[in-house]
Each structure stands twice: as structure tokens, then as C-alpha cells.
């Protein structure tokens, strides 16, 4: 299969969800396949509940770390409203979105000062922004794997399962197997992610 070069993936989430690790897994898998990869990250406020975003660009060339607006081939959304916030800038009518629909509420929502929009409305709007969307509850699947914190690995599995990026399931699984902490939980989580998309296909 021929992929656009650069192939652009944007990950949208909240501090503490592990997008830095996920983007590294995808990057390592792409490098293992002979690609150049650039990852641009914004994580200054990561540990304090802020929005975090990673850009992953897979190319044959030495590309820059930032994806131009409306030029992402894939949005990996770790949180619904972050997916919408970031998707509105980077998606285009032919891109794909894979979104964990399990919310992480902003502080003002938690304390009852602001309202979180309905999940259906978020999904509806995301649908209008791209050509295909896969939704899943990755936190639930991570819990099934043994630890809600491996949600990010479920999402990497979902990315692999969708078969739309230049990195494939086998290479990604090999990268996951290199994780030292909670290796088996991560492998289970990865495969649950792959399967979730298969069911969605």
C-alpha cells in the first residue's frame, strides 16, 4: 500500500494520559521500517491537567515537527473534547479519527461551574470533520487488560488495527513487548485495541 509522504498523525489528550509514550512507540515502529520520523510535542503543562498534543510525521525525508493545519491523516483522540478541539484544526474531509470516548473532565466541570457537552454531540461534530471515525472506550478496555493507565496502549493497538498508517501491527507489537513495566498488561491492552477496531470495521 502507498502512503502519503509525510504521513501525519496527531494525538490529542490531557496531561498524564501517556501520549508521549504512545508517540514514541509509533515512531520507533516507523523507524524500524526505515522511515524518518519527527515528533512535535507540547507538554509544558502536562502534569497539571492541561491539554497535550503530539504530532507524529512519518516520512522518507527530514521533515519538520509540526503538521500544517487540516493536514493530519489520522487523529488519535485520547479524550473526546480534546479530540474535537484538536481535530477542528488538523482534520480534513478525507482523514480518519480514532477516539477514546471516555471523558477526562476539566476542573471547572468537576466543580460544577461549567458543563461538559454530551458525548453524542461531540461524536456528531467529529463525524462532520473527517471521512471515517472509530470510537471506543479505551479506559474500559485498559481496565479489562488489568490497569486503566494503559489506555494509551489500547489506543496504539487501535491505530495498528485500523491499518491506515505506514506502521503495521507486528512491528508495533514488537515495540510494545519492549516495555518493561506491566509488559503483559500492555500486550493484552494492545490486542484489545486491535480487536476493538476490527469489530468497528
Amino acid at each position, binding site marked *: 500500500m502507498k502512503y502519503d509522504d509525510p504521513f501525519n498523525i496527531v494525538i490529542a489528550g*490531557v496531561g498524564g494520559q501517556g501520549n508521549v509514550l504512545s*508517540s*514514541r512507540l509509533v*515512531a*520507533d515502529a516507523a*523507524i524500524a521500517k526505515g522511515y*524518518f*520520523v*519527527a*515528533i*512535535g*510535542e*507540547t*507538554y*509544558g*503543562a502536562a*502534569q*497539571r*491537567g*492541561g*491539554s497535550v498534543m503530539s504530532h507524529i510525521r512519518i516520512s522518507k525525508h*527530514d*521533515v*519538520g*515537527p*509540526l*503538521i*500544517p*493545519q*487540516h*493536514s493530519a491523516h489520522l487523529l488519535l483522540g485520547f479524550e473526546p*473534547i*480534546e479530540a*474535537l*478541539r484538536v*481535530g*477542528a*484544526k488538523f*482534520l*480534513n*474531509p478525507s482523514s480518519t479519527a480514532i477516539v477514546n470516548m471516555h471523558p477526562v*473532565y*476539566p*476542573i*471547572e*466541570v*468537576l*466543580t*460544577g*461551574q*461549567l*458543563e*461538559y*457537552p454530551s458525548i453524542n*454531540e*461531540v461524536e456528531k*461534530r467529529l463525524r*462532520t*470533520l473527517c471521512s471515517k471515525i472509530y470510537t471506543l472506550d479505551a479506559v474500559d478496555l485498559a481496565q479489562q487488560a488489568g490497569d*486503566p493507565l494503559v489506555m494509551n496502549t489500547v489506543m496504539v493497538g487501535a491505530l495498528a488495527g485500523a491499518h491506515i498508517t505506514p506502521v503495521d501491527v507486528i512491528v508495533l507489537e514488537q515495540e510494545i513487548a519492549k516495555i518493561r513495566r506491566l509488559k503483559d498488561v500492555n500486550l493484552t491492552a494492545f490486542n484489545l485495541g486491535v480487536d476493538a477496531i476490527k469489530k468497528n470495521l
Partner: protein
Amino acid sequence: MTGKTGDIVIGLGNDAIARGAFEAGVHFAAAYPGTPSSEILENLATISKDAGIYVEWSVNEKVAFEAATAAAWTGLRAMASMKLNGFFVILDSLINIAYTGHGPGGLVLVVADDPFAHSSTTEGDARPLGFYSDIVVLEPSTHQEAKDIIPYAFELSEKHGVIVMVRETTRLAHSRAPFKLGKVSKTKRTATFDYNLPLHNLPRPHLRHGDLHTRLDKIRVEEFEKSTLNLYDGPPKPSLLIITSGIAWKYVREAVDLLQLKDVGILRIATLSPLPKAMILDRLKKTSEVLFFEEVDPYLETQIRSLATELSSNSTPQFFGKLTGHVPVFGEVDINQALKSIAALKALSYSAAQKEYVNMAKDAPNIVPRRLLTFCTGCPHRPTYYSIYRAIKRNKGKGIVTGDIGCYSLGVFYHGVMQNQHSMGAGVGIASGLGKLDQFGLKDPIIAVVGDSTFYHACLPALVNIVYNQSKAIVCVLDNNATAMTGFQPHPGTGLSATGDVTSTVPIERVLQGIGFQSVTVVDPFNLKESIDTVYKALNSDKSQAIVFRRECALITNRQRRQRQESIPMFMVEADKCFGDKCKICSVEFNCPACVWDNESDKALIETTLCNGCGVCVDVCPHQAIHLLEE
């Protein structure tokens, strides 16, 4: 860091710089943590013992730079790394030592600028400051160059007796890309102090200044005019020449490619000071239009425009850039801005999607609530600020809070408790001034809030000033036993060194007592009543007051809990006792993300997945509705 020659690894720009220093055979590395520069020293610390490199977290950047200078004076290769704000801190010493030179060793600075101020309180540009300080300035554009430029910087420094600065920006420092490892040079050297070296600028500093300019001119002619670090790509006589440096070069390249412009040339300059004058003038003669596309300040733009006065009027191109409004003078440049600026000059437009789609997409997130930054659950700063907030409230709203930069800067979002927030230690100096204004009618009590690492970094002179000049400012030190904001680097209060070894501690309260504060109180912010009372008492005292709020960072507590496989204590709200909507003190006023408001029952709820078990909410609740859940 430790891979073999020829290995291709993926890492941060900072990882590449650290590896470059390792390959250059650096002997001495000093730094103060600051985003986006901290990983450079952290990397070197991991290999320091095996590689025989001395590594230290200095108390501030000025000391780091001076310590590195000392090592260079004895013939070693020394490096100091810092964020831009740290570079501001070293300027006086830098300009002095630039005249003197650094003896037989090599002295390299790495300065990380933070355009957009992603994790800073100011934007700024180290390039013009490097020029102003008469040091050599280099800037890489790729991860590979970031690694390769460091050994070159050391060579230049040693060969010409100059200080070499390598500038990077956040997008290089904190992006990841592959780079190929080179050979690690083994430069075992002995430190020897040459008593005959004139390591000062007296009696005629201006003559030393003149000598320095001679050295810089030599570098310009012998090294930079023909340097292969400066790249030109495009036709021999382009219709438009784009001049750029650093990571912005990548944006320009991609934009020119996307716009399919064949007659545009790109000049990437990596040797930023002294600028290769002849090479640049030669390029200017071959085009009629020039666009400067650079991060932060119009450095190349102003320098090259002034060089261009040497050209005859008919060979002077027309210049575009920040000075003409074609590139913004603030914020970060990126690929979108490159597309916009270049397309505008070429009377083109570029969009990856149709106009209707772009307009629709713009409105799509209008249902998304903002995500304010807040203290982590279990963070000791929350009860500290809550105590200050409550004490000021009890004091009829009187109490001005000054501050600076660290995790505790989030105090500006916490009911606006912190009213001003600037550079490291600034809050103490400002409080010192505010506390002397009663003769002009300002009677309000003043509180300076400062973090533990910042306390050592930049507060000591201002603390002495408070005591010496009898300012009535109250100093609150928020001691969480780490430089938490930048990634938990140790500091003089922790008893640990950069390499994790046990070292001497400098206890904060003893420093405060030694300076002469009449009252120094250490409180645990988790003890809410004592904290509020201590602040309130200080607000109404005539003695000079210092309060140390001591409790380690919640993320450290969590890490230790995980290691010991301990569970987090669980708390619950007794719904019958909760006053509901009429109160909301735990969730809205104390503002803990784990004190969730349940809109259906209109009662508070402890969200156990978010709760870190600090238990402060038990004391925050005025109705005794929150309890520890017994196993």
C-alpha cells in the same frame, strides 16, 4: 547517550546536544533546570560516572556559567546549559568573561529559547543578546546538526579563545527525531591553573574589548564566510530569497515545497554571530526580494538590513519580514505561518481544505469547555494557597501576594491569590519594595510566595534586603522538596546531588534565621488550621516574618507509594451531612479536582480515581461531612 558509533537513535533535540557534548569529550557540565533545557544536563548526569564527566545542578545559571568558566580556565572542556531566562541571569558575568577569554580550555553555552512562552513567562531571543555580548552564536536546525554542532563549538572556542553559544528553540529541544551517533573522543586532561594568565580585564577593559573584536573578525573571515553550516538551496538568481535560521528553516522548506515555488531560494544561516558578511552580501546582490523568516526577534533582519547599506541602491533588494508586518513580531512561527507569509508575497493562497470546510471546522469546538491548569490532587500548594486565601479573607481582604515562576505560579489562577508573578525571585524583591510604602499611604500587609528551588536561585539578596531595610514583607517558602515544575531535579535543600549522591543540605529555615528574620515558622500545609492561623498571625505582626510550608510534592509521594505497593487512603462524603449547593466549599472554594460536584444529587462526591488521599478536604468541610473510609 551510550549507543555505539553509527547507531541511529531517536531522541529529543536536547538528547542530541547532550550526546554531542559527550562525543566532544566534555569534562565539566553545569546547569540550572529550566524548560526546555533541563534534559541536557539530566542526560549527562546519567553517564557522568562512567565517562568521568563532572556534572552539577548549580544554584542558578550565573553560578553554573562561572563554575564552567573556571573549569575552562584550567584547560578543560566545559559547558553550561540554560533556558533563555537563565541566559538573562548570566549576562554581567558573560560580558566580563568574554573579554578575558577562558584560558586554554573550551567554553560552550547552550541556550534554549521558548517562543510562544510554552513554559516560560516571557518570549525572548538569545541571538541578539549573544551578538551584544560579543560571543559566537551558532544555531542548528535538525537533531543531527544539534549533536554535530557541539564538538565544533568546542573546537572553535579553543582555537580562537572565544565563548561559543549554541541556541536552540523549544521545537528543536522538545521534538524527537532520529540522529546518527558519532565517535566519542577521549580527551583525558589534567586541570592546571596557570598563575601567569591575566584572567581579568584591568587596567584597560576597553583594550581587552578591542582584542575580542579582533578574534571575532578572524572567526568571521577564516571560519564563517565559507562555513558549510550555512546552506543555500534554490536557483542561482532567485526571484525571492528567504533568509532563516534554526527550526524555522524546516518550516520554510516545507512551505516552499507545498506552494511548488521553483524560483525561490532559501538561505539557512547557522553561524549567527559574527555573521558571514561577504557571503550574505553576495546573495543579496542576486535577488530583488528578501523575506526574513525567523523565531522571535528580527535579528537577522536588522543585521542584514544594516549590512545591505553597503550595496549600491540598484542592487539593494526589497526587504520583508517582521519590520514590514509580513511575519508576526510575537509568538512562535510555524509551518502555517511560513505558508501564509510566503504565499502573501507571491500573491498566492494556500489551504489544505476547502473554505466551507475550514469555516465549519472553526465553529466545531464551540461546545468545548476550557481546561484550566490546576494543582494536582494531593498537591501541598493547594492547601497552602487556601490557607493564604482564608487568612487574607479573615483579615478583611487585606494582603497583597507577590510571586514568581514555578508550579506555585498557578496561584494566579487560584482565586487570583497571587497578584503578580514574574522572574525567578522577583516576588521577594517586589514585596520588599511594597513593604516600604507605608509612609506614602500603602498600609496593606505584603506576602511574597516563593518555591524551594527558587529560594536558593534568586531570593537571597532580596531576603537580605527585607531584613536590612526593615521592610514589613512576609516571606512564604513553599517547600515541596523538589524542582517539581521542570522534572524533580534536586536542589540544595534535598540533600542529593545531580548524580543522585548524598550531599550537604542547606536548610531553608536556617538560612532565614541566619539572615535575621525575627520569626521563622515551619508548618505542614496539610494541617489547615495551623497554616491559616500562622498566616493570619503574620499578617498582623510587627516582626519580620518567614513561613516555610513544608510537604513533599504529591507526585513524589505517589511514586513512593507505588514502590512500596501501598494503597491510597480513600475518603467519602456523607451525603446527609453535605450542605449541597449552599456550601460548595470543598469543590469550588478549595477547588480540588477530586472533590467532584454531583449535579444530580447536588452534593459533593470524592472521585476516588482522581483522589490522591491527602485528606485536607476533611478539614476544609465546615460540616464534618467528609471522612476517611475505613478498610
